[in-house]
């Protein structure tokens, strides 16, 4: 059973694992068709449950049949045991009866006179009754022939009596028996009982041959010489069922193979034992313990069709029965014992529980499958839903992007209005300050537009989708822009703002200017937020430079700062950078790549500083030092984390050092490619990017300036900015040095820049200096470098007769050049013409031969007029083909403006053909287009155009584009 169970479980496990395999298989096979799988599974589940119901029924049947078999076996063994015992005991009794027959033959017939009489026999049998526990009595009948009857009757003193009448009325009382019996009728022979045990004394004198049963018995016994049994019958007197065992007593010993006739003739008499079967079996069963559980019936089945019950209640029960054959030594008679259990068989609980248990387990497994399936279906549904939601979310995201794009576009439009108006404002007569304000406003406006773009990019950063551009840009110009952006705020707060870019830093680098600017803007923005007094100083160096000066410049920086206030030591902010601690001791970070420029940028401020406890989480998004800060200063706190991310993208690192109440210094490194090595080839591009300041620089090229400033750091900044205009700069610490330098005959000093601080220190010395300056009279201009407007105003009051021009910090090349131009412009005679770009355009375009191509006559006329206004020599062509002919080399055109959308041959195609024709030389071709979008720009570049201008012309943009290709013809001299 156990083995079976094990097998069953194995099967079960196999099935389960098989199913789970199938699940996988199916999952992948039917991933698309859920419907099919569902019904398939349902069928499988039903089959599974059905199968297990069958299995459990089988188990139930199997186990209960096992139990039945066992019960049957038990019954059989019990029954056989009883039958054997009964048989044994019977045989023992029978042997005794046989022994008695020998006794009779020996002592009754063998002796003369007989040694046995009725009394002896009775007493003997009485005393030996224990030997025959099953016989209720023994009697001996002698064979009497009819011829001997009388003699015999006389001898015994009674007549032989008939038995059959006796049998008919067995209920009569003992004493009346003898008298009532009739004498036996005349027969051939008789077998009257002569001896009988006391218990059966009433049979004495009865003729055994007269009773039907007895007669047959007697005849059979003497013929066979063996013990013979009667059929069971009601015993006389006791009225219980019994059988009579009869042995024949022979006169002589007969051989075992004697024929029946010999036996009959040798017969002397018959000894009979009465067996009380009922009590016999009763006694026997009492000896055995399990009497109460088993019902025993004994039958005489000599006549097969009518078995005669010898023992046992005749309860007919179709239950389990076992039949054991009994052999009582009489071949003629057959007996059998039938055993039944008294109780009905108990319920086969084991089988029931086992099968039910298995069924339950199977159902549970089925349920688990079902649940799993449902779960899978549910998960799939959820997955499906989720996908749907994802789709929707993506759609929403797209919608959001579109919304942002639209909104930013919508913002750009009014911003363009603002910028346009500012540009117009710049065209009016303004003094240097006003011009700078307007330019700052314009720059800030442009920055705002950029910012809107950056808002869009921020989402990209968050999703990690950001990619850096790689384009050449002028680092210094970027710095100026940043400075311009913050100069207004710095003015408001009275904080000095300065930028310094080391000379070692290449002019052009290749990288992502927007992102670079973004980082710096972020850092500067933070600094300006938290700085109330002092300065903010932005420096750019090469990493190599810093590394070399690392050891030297440790102690000097304590007091030597821009505003004189102590600052946090910047060098400590980058001590942790990997670039400074390369593995091993290899010196330069990337010695092999001379193309790479490792920049280190630091922003130093004298602000509040970051509390020590907040320093670790400065770069965590949305973390601000204190919630109150966002209330006080605004901002989201994401700036630094974005910066960190961007710096990481530029293969750099960012770090900071901050001392509360002294200030913070943020430093980051970034790796760019060197854009200078090929600057000669890409001159136009470089110039385009440098635009204004570049043209200005030509104005001041070769001049010499003197900067009077006792603070080396500040002087360095001033020098850096002035040098950018192409002016040679000398630094002096005070007026005396300055004067001696100016009076040096070898060189002419064109301008002197005096730090406001120096100027205000002592007005008399300042006045003296002016006086001396006038004495020397080299046409030297004097400029004050002032921190803010207020100070410049007070200054005007103090120095009476000669008011130097004040250049308001922060210094930046463009503003400086504007101021210088204004101051110098007095000499040129047209001081008030501030329409800068339009003037420059005249410079650029005067006398140029320019081809305009447009199919639209009106456009052509307008463009023609516009360019002619700037002094250009204009030729018009109204189709691409004409333009082609005109531009067939050699030609004398300096530039070509080409409409894009033209019938027959559009601008792109015309340009392509023109470029193909060009063997040497390259005529700048600019597209004229109404919709200025990026795609068009790229398209322009692809087919060999150099740029595009908006149609109708816009002065500023036209200038920007044209200035890239055309050098001003008339260089303005002083």
């Amino acid at each position, binding site marked *: 059973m156990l083995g079976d169970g094990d097998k069953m479980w194995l099967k079960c496990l196999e099935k389960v694992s098989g199913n789970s395999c199938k699940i996988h298989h199916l999952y992948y096979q039917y991933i698309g068709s859920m419907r099919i799988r569902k019904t398939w599974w349902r069928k499988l589940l039903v089959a599974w449950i059905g199968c297990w119901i069958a299995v459990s029924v089988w188990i139930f049947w199997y186990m209960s049949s096992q139990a039945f078999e066992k019960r049957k076996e038990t019954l059989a063994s019990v029954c056989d045991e009883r039958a054997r015992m009964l048989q044994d005991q019977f045989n023992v009794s029978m042997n005794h009866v046989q022994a008695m027959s020998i006794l009779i033959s020996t002592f009754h017939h063998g002796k003369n006179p007989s040694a046995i009489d009725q009394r002896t026999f009775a007493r003997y049998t009485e005393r030996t009754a224990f030997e025959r526990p099953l016989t209720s009595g023994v009697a001996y009948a002698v064979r009497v022939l009819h011829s001997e009857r009388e003699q015999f009757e006389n001898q015994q003193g009674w007549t032989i009596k008939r038995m059959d009448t006796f049998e008919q009325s067995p209920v009569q009382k003992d004493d009346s028996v003898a008298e009532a019996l009739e004498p036996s009728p005349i027969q051939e022979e008789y077998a009257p009982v002569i001896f009988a045990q006391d218990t059966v004394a009433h049979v004495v004198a009865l003729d055994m041959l007269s009773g039907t049963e007895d007669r047959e018995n007697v005849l059979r016994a003497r013929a066979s010489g063996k013990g013979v049994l009667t059929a069971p019958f009601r015993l006389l007197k006791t009225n219980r069922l019994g059988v009579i065992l009869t042995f024949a007593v022979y006169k002589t010993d007969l051989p075992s193979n004697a024929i029946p006739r010999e036996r009959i003739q040798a017969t002397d008499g018959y000894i009979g034992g009465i067996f009380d079967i009922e009590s016999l079996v009763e006694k026997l069963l009492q000896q055995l313990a399990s009497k109460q559980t088993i019902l025993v019936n004994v039958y005489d089945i000599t006549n097969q069709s009518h078995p005669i019950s010898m023992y046992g209640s005749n309860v007919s029960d179709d239950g389990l029965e076992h039949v054991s054959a009994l052999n009582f030594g009489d071949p003629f008679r057959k007996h059998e014992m039938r055993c039944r259990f008294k109780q009905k068989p108990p319920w086969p609980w084991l089988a029931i529980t086992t099968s039910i248990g298995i069924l339950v387990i199977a159902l549970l497994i089925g349920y688990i499958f079902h649940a799993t399936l449902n779960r899978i279906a549910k998960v799939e549904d959820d997955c499906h839903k989720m996908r749907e939601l994802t789709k929707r979310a993506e759609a929403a995201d797209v919608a959001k992007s579109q919304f942002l794009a639209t909104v930013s576009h919508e913002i750009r439009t009014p911003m363009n209005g603002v910028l346009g108006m500012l540009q117009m404002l710049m065209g009016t007569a303004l003094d240097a300050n006003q011009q700078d304000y307007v330019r700052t406003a314009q720059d800030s406006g442009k920055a705002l537009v950029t910012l809107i773009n950056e808002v869009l990019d921020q989402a990209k950063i968050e999703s990690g989708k950001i990619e850096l551009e790689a384009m050449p840009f002028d680092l210094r110009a970027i710095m100026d822009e940043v400075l311009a952006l913050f100069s207004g705020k710095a003015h408001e707060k009275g904080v000095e703002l300065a930028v310094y870019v080391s000379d070692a830093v290449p002019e052009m680098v290749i990288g992502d200017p927007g992102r670079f600017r973004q980082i710096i803007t972020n850092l500067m923005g933070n600094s300006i937020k938290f700085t109330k007094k002092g300065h903010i100083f932005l420096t750019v160096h090469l990493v190599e430079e810093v590394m070399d000066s690392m050891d030297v410049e440790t102690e000097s920086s304590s007091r030597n700062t821009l505003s004189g206030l102590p600052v946090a030591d910047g060098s400590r902010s980058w001590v942790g950078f990997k670039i400074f601690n390369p593995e091993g001791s290899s010196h330069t970070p990337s010695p092999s790549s001379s193309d790479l420029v490792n920049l280190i940028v630091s922003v130093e401020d004298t602000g509040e500083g970051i509390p020590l406890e907040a320093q670790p989480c400065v770069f965590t998004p949305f973390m601000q030092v204190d919630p109150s800060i966002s209330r006080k200063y605004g901002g989201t706190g994401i700036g630094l984390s974005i910066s960190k991310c961007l710096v990481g993208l530029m293969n750099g690192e960012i770090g900071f050092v901050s001392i509360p109440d002294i200030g913070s210094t943020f430093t980051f490194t970034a790796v760019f490619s060197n854009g200078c090595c090929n600057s000669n080839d890409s001159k136009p591009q470089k110039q385009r990017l440098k635009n204004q300041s570049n043209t200005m620089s030509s104005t001041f090229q070769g001049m010499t300036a003197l900067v009077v400033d006792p603070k080396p750091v500040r002087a360095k900044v001033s020098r850096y900015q002035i040098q950018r205009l192409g002016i040679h700069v000398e630094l002096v610490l005070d007026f005396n040095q300055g004067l001696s330098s100016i009076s040096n005959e070898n060189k002419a000093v064109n301008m002197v820049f005096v730090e406001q601080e120096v100027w205000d220190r002592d007005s008399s010395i300042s006045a003296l200096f002016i006086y001396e300056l006038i004495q020397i009279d080299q046409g030297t201009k004097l400029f004050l470098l002032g921190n803010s407007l207020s100070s410049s105003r007070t200054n005007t009051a103090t120095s009476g007769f000669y008011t130097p021009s004040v250049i308001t910090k922060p210094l930046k090349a463009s503003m400086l050049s504007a101021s210088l131009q204004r101051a110098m412009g007095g000499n040129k005679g047209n001081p008030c013409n501030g329409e800068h770009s339009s003037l420059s355009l005249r410079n650029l375009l005067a006398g140029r031969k320019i081809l305009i191509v447009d199919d*639209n*006559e*009106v456009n052509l006329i307008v463009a023609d007029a*516009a360019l002619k*206004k700037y002094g250009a020599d204009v030729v018009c062509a109204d189709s691409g083909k004409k333009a082609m002919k005109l531009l067939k080399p050699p030609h004398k055109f300096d530039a070509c403006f080409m409409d894009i*959308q033209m019938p027959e041959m559009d601008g792109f195609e015309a340009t392509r053909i023109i470029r193909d024709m060009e063997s040497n030389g390259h005529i700048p071709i600019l597209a004229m287009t109404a919709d200025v979008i990026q795609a068009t720009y790229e398209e322009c570049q692809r087919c060999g155009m150099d740029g595009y201008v908006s*149609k109708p012309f816009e002065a500023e943009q036209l200038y920007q584009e044209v200035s890239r290709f055309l050098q001003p013809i008339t260089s303005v001299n002083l």
Partner: protein
Amino acid sequence: MDLLSQLRGQIADFSAFLHREGFVDDQFTQLQKLRDESSPGFVVEVVSLFFEDCEKLVNNMAKALEQQIVDFKQVDSHVHQLKGSSSSIGAARIHNVCIAFKTCCEDQNRNGCVRCLQQVNHECIQLKNNLQTLFNLEQQIIAAGGSIPAKQ
């Protein structure tokens, strides 16, 4: 001089009106700036050229739109032309209608195109009348011995 200043006032009011109503935009002002001593009739020249052009284009488009199968590509190129020239002279309203017209062409919306064409025609006539008035005023100023006021 009284008449002159009066006329100047009128012309200033009128051009302010034209700007306000969106008939013309800054480009027109720019155009006026391009006028100098050598070519005093520059604006009138350009504008009349524009209207000639305009009339031609409108006729062409009308013809194209009457066809059984409308060649929208051709109409589109006409509209593009008109758009370019209107933007060049600063005819803001026509320019705007052209933008809508172009969209209709791209959508191949015949009814829309016809409606836009009517609108263009209408705007052209209006602008023509308005500019005529303006030029008349200028002529009167010149006739009165003054010069046309410089635009701001």
